[in-house]
């Protein structure tokens, strides 16, 4: 059988277009990835054959739809190596997953005197929900620092900040600005020693490398489908069953209740308790198909592929004049951020777009980290399974032209 990598770009129709007269070079994968034919076909097929509301339905289509939805749950459970499908709650994505944990677990377990430990490299989605629950409960926030431009967590500070008052330690697996891959299993082990619950933001790792919740030893793990070759609108929260079972509901409505009276109600067990209303079963099917797609490519292979492109980009970019390239020099996730001394990220991105190259420029929902690094914004190139070395070449050539246009050849 030929390697699924061989004609991989054929799987992504969107790549075969010109932007501003140049072949599209899509390097904004950390924001969202493109979708393979297989995922869109699964979605279309579901709606063409099996669509009906799930659960409680006794007719053929409803039973098929329920099987498809619960099948997707099982598929996602094996994808992250959960112990049981019930440990997977479907959500809109990483942000909703973290809000669910912060509101439900946090609301029920945090109080004045408790500490929520985060890191300085957290995305707003793993930061603002904790600020909101801190305000509500009286718990306080504390941060594990980042070392600087090489963008590692300052582990020498861990003992100082990870004290027994820490009830929850939430951190990202891979930084969406620095590209740093954090030692998540170690961090979870350390947190366990002080009895803190661990929440991992896997938005930037889930589609790019093996993610095994049991090997990592985390309590919760949040991710988005749209960053792993699936569509927008679907993601998941993994939670250890014992913890989920003890949590109060978050949203109320159909599907999550076991009994409703006019004045009070009883809840279903997990995961239904946390899935009020008609779930997004259509997109859940697409998420299951994305798991299949990624496993066919092999997640170790994806890690190697994306990481190699990012390291190549890191090297080649570092040779440009007046540039500051962020994050670790060696092993890194599939992205690289950079800033020029005399050229703003927005101008960089606009000129790259002129050459058909899609970059992201801004604070990447990392405002506190940016300030910490003395920056207001960076440009970011992020890679996925369909990117190629020649696209790194195209990026570097385009940046050189832009520098020249602004008289900054160095």
């Amino acid at each position, binding site marked *: 059988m030929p390697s699924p990598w061989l004609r991989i770009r054929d799987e992504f129709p969107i790549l075969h277009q010109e932007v501003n007269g140049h072949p599209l070079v899509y390097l904004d994968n950390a924001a969202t990835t493109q979708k393979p034919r297989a995922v869109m076909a699964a979605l279309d097929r579901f709606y063409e054959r099996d669509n009906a509301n799930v*659960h*409680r*339905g*006794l007719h053929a289509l409803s*039973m098929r739809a*329920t099987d498809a939805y619960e099948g997707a749950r099982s598929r996602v459970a094996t994808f992250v190596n959960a112990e049981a*499908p*019930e440990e997977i709650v479907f959500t809109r994505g990483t942000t909703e997953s973290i809000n669910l944990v912060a509101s439900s677990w946090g609301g029920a377990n945090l109080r004045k005197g408790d500490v929520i430990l985060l890191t300085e490299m957290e995305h707003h989605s793993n930061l603002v929900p904790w600020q909101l629950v801190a305000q509500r409960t009286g718990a306080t926030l504390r941060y594990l620092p980042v070392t600087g431009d090489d963008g590692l967590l300052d582990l020498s500070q861990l003992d100082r900040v990870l004290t027994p008052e820490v009830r929850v330690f939430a951190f990202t697996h891979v930084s969406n600005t620095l590209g740093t891959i954090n030692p998540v299993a170690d961090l979870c082990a350390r947190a366990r020693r002080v009895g803190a619950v661990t929440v991992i933001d896997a938005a930037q790792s889930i589609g790019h490398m093996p993610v095994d919740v049991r090997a990592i030893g985390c309590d919760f793990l949040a991710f988005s489908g749209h960053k792993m070759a699936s569509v927008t609108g679907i993601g998941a929260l993994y939670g250890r069953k014992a913890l989920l079972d003890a949590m109060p509901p978050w949203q109320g409505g159909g599907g999550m*209740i*076991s*009994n409703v009276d006019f004045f009070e109600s*009883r809840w*279903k*067990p*997990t*995961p*239904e308790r946390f899935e009020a209303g008609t779930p997004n079963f259509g997109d859940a099917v697409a998420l299951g198909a994305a798991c299949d797609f990624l496993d066919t490519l092999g997640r170790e292979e994806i890690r190697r592929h994306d990481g190699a492109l990012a390291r190549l980009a890191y090297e080649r970019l570092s040779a440009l004049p007046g540039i500051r390239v962020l994050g670790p020099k060696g092993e890194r996730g599939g992205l690289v951020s950079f800033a020029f001394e005399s050229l703003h990220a927005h101008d960089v991105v606009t000129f790259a777009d002129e050459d058909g190259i899609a970059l992201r420029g801004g604070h990447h929902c990392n405002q506190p980290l940016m300030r910490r690094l003395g920056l207001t914004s960076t440009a970011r190139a992020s890679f996925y399974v369909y990117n190629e070395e020649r696209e790194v070449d195209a990026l570097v050539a385009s940046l050189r032209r832009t520098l020249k246009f602004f008289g900054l050849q160095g």
Partner: protein
Amino acid sequence: MSAELSDLYQQVILDHNRRPRNRGRLPTANRSAHGDNPSCGDQCDVFLRLEGDRIAEISFEGSGCAISQASASLMTTQLKGKTSAEAQKLFKEFHEIVTTGKEPEVISDLAAFAGVHAFPARIKCATLSWHAALNALRGDTVAATTESHKD
């Protein structure tokens, strides 16, 4: 009528549904438990008179579909005279039958429920009264519910 449907609504089941056995409150009961299947509104109360560890008498009351009513009725005929341990074992067998469709080793009326396995959404209907009965045996006061993620 398809083979699946006539397997589901077997003569035994239709018969128990039409003329339920041991239906009504048991005045001499020393144990009882309530069960519900909130997602379909099925309800079932099971009443037991335990003598030692043995079920001397048993009855049920409830409302629900033909499958749930027949299952409750048939269950009472099967559990009468059994010990707690024997009841547990029977339920295990019954659960196996309704979830896999496998015929039981010893010939038994429970086999009439093998057709349920082709209708996963109806498994809850068939097991509700059993859950209530086991709760009553254990002396649990919490209502049995079929609302676990599976079954």
